[in-house]
């Protein structure tokens, strides 16, 4: 083998390593739909709570949303032909979102049943929690769009402290729209583009 051919062979090995490492780390998970699902669930719960005056509106809607998400995840996992590998980034993100879900499921019903629930406190705490979780995810993924989503929730949480009930509801509705629905649709578009790119590369 000539020196030039050997050099090309070595460079080929180096680019193989780089491309395979990138392939392994590439996250092909799609989570945009969960943002939309929870955004719609929040809207349903708010509408039911305000119009229907049902004290169980939030508990029932959140439980149904959680069951629906689990059913969709189970169905998607069943449809997969090959099991995707677990990555440290994927596990980190899923663990902080799971922790958020548990915190919310414990804290908000407790606030409600203890009689210490006010819309302002709820939006402030939910905003801070969602802001923190989105920010942590964005830092792991190095995704600025999700950091913007975190800012939406942080601002909503802080602003809620200075509002009356009507203003607080408007702030919450706006935060859900931008932080859940708009961001969720944007994430779904990004995921769809990435899948198409991968299909073209394959």
């Amino acid at each position, binding site marked *: 083998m000539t*020196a030039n051919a*050997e*050099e090309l062979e*070595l*460079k080929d*090995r*180096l680019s*193989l*390593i*780089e491309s*395979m*490492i*990138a*392939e*392994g*780390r590439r996250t092909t998970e799609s989570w945009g739909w969960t943002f939309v699902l929870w955004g719609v669930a929040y809207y349903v719960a708010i509408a039911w709570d305000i119009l229907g005056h049902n004290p169980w509106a939030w508990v029932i809607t959140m439980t149904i949303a959680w069951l629906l998400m689990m059913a969709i995840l189970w169905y998607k996992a069943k449809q997969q*032909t*090959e*099991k*995707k*590998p*677990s*990555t*440290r980034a994927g*596990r980190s993100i899923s663990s902080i979102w799971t922790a958020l879900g548990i915190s919310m499921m414990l804290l908000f019903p407790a606030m409600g049943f203890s009689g210490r629930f006010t819309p302002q406190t709820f939006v402030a705490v939910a905003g801070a929690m969602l802001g923190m979780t989105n920010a942590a995810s964005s830092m792991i993924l190095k995704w600025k769009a999700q950091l913007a989503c975190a800012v939406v929730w942080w601002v909503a949480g802080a602003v809620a402290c200075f509002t009356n009930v009507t203003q607080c509801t408007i702030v919450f509705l706006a935060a859900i729209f931008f932080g859940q629905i708009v961001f969720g649709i944007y994430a779904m578009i990004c995921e769809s583009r990435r899948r198409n790119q991968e299909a073209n590369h394959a």
Partner: protein
Amino acid sequence: MPELPELNPVIHGKLRLALLSLLVGVEEAEFTWLRAKTGSTDGNLGAQLLKLEEAGYVTVEKKFVQRKPQSIYRITEGGRAALTEYVRALKQLLGGAIGA
């Protein structure tokens, strides 16, 4: 003139190199995923993974999930160190080739 390093022959095989590079980016991976990513046949992939396993660079966990066999592969600390050393040697060799 400094002596040029030798490349680890266990890792130098193209498929074995691809497998170690894939595994270094994930915590664990299933046989079918590795097959899809490398485009290799079952037989060849199994043989190359066995060589990596014998060298102590990967570990395998075989189990049954819903009555289907599943082989989960993980890179070991030794495998990680060997790949790092291989890349270092490769870069040194390429540096020598560029400098020549």
